[in-house]
């Protein structure tokens, strides 16, 4: 099967195996839907693409199930396929950070090469991996308010929990905007690879 595939797409390197792609296109729309409906919930206005609270909340709640399941699946996959090493920044990334920043700040035209992801990508993906659980935990506290009364007091109550959920969404939105910008402009081959798997 594998050889058949590589025969079909000759000379192409597999960059994203199917689970990564499948899961990316599960959590990415869920996060985007969560951002849009979430910002409508915090400040209802047609700017966010919804006309009423009912539809925004339904969207948010459907997105949350997709996000929770795809996140858990991605963590399991990262663990079983050991590809979390590609995502979590290591010592080498810190050492090569200045080189990377120099290029991104247009101080040199030499584009540094990295094994898979550059340090910027790694930081963004790791931040997603840390912020989404914050979103899930605070979101569940707001969703199942009665069941999680006790844990909500750890955050100081439901009002501070709401604030935490909001502040985490602001961070996720900023990171997602940056990620999408770089995904669309850094390399079209890499962009293609998140759809087809091959660069």
């Amino acid at each position, binding site marked *: 099967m594998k050889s058949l595939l590589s025969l079909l797409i000759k000379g192409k390197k597999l960059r994203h195996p199917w689970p990564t792609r499948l899961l990316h296109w599960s959590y990415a729309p869920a996060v985007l839907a969560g951002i849009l409906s979430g910002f409508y919930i*915090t*400040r*209802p206005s047609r700017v966010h693409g919804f*006309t*009423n*609270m*009912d539809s925004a909340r339904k969207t948010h709640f459907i997105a949350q199930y997709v996000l929770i399941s795809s996140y858990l699946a991605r963590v399991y996959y990262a663990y079983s396929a050991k590809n979390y090493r590609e995502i979590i920044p290591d010592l080498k990334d810190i050492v090569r950070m200045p080189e990377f920043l120099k290029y*991104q*700040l*247009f101080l040199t*035209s030499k584009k540094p090469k990295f094994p898979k992801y550059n340090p910027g990508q790694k930081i963004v993906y790791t931040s997603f991996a840390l912020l989404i659980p914050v979103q899930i935990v605070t979101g569940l506290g*707001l969703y199942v*308010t*009665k069941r999680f*009364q*006790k844990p909500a*007091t750890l955050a*100081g*109550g*439901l*009002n*501070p*929990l*709401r*604030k935490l959920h*909001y*502040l985490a969404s*602001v*961070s996720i*939105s*900023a990171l997602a*905007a*940056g990620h999408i*910008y770089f995904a669309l*402009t*850094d*390399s*079209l*081959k890499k*962009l*293609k690879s998140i759809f*087809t798997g091959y660069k």
Partner: protein
Amino acid sequence: MQGKTNHKLLEQLIPRLLKPRAGESRPPVIWLGTNTCAGDMLSLLNSLDPGYRSLLTDLIDFRYNYLLGTAEGDMATGILDETMAELPGEYILVVEGTIPTRSNGLYCVIGRRNGEPLTALQAVRELGASARYVVAAGTCAAFGGPYAAAPNPSDSKSVQAVLERRVINVPGCPVLPDWLMGTLAHLIRYGEPELDDLNRPKLFYGETIHNLCQRRHYFDNSIFAKKPGDPWCMYKIGCKGPVTFADCPYRQWNSEHLSWPVKANTPCIGCVSPEFPDGDMPFFEHLPDVKLPGIRTTADRIGTITGVITALGISGHMIGSIVTNRLPHTLKKGFSGNGMLQKLLKKLR
């Protein structure tokens, strides 16, 4: 029509529920006022059905009440000692207000004993130890509330924070008369009511205001009040109904169950929540303020600033990429002869 019958039924039931049954006596109650505005006692006096008189004659035996007691000085304080010595495990202790803990509690002295000041801290600890039940009346006693708000110079705490045993919390700023009257009646006639995770009786604090609100359909359809006084959903002007557990929407206030904040066209301020008021201010904003070292700002502003920085960063980088010819190069390379798209197009042709 149905409401009318229900009302009649209640009229018949309440006296039966309250009247002591044969062989039952009215349990002694001690009501301490610590650091408080007296709002909860005043609120209770507004109870209509049953009223204060019925409370005294049918339900409880008021041994001590900081506001309405006629005894003064040693005579008043003596009753506390007497009750503790003679009726341990029988009396109900109700505390209204926070307990200051700084300087051994000297910031609230409720009387003198043997010439020494008797602090609220001491009184609550001693009386609490041998009471049958301890009830915290109002948000200050239950969770700290306004009297423990920042900067809290007297280091005031809730009743639960100074007692080892379970305290039944009946918060509200002030407490709704029914909540307290109902809790007392339940304790006396049926024992401890079912409590939630914050030790509030589920009978009164079991559902969010938002889920009981008469204006919920305005919320679902996004018909919002723009200012206090508008007759729509108060969400956009800071209504804390979605994160507040209480039955105000159907029980309502003013003794005759006439009205409640949203019905009076003003948002719920979440007064029964443990974080009230520091953790849910400003009352007319949707989200509480963000406190960073040295700065206090609205959550909205943090969102706006982050949005602006992100937009500036991305557009700056994009301009850089265009000026240095990086972006045009990337795009050209992507769509050039060895690009996938090109190949696909060729194949299609």
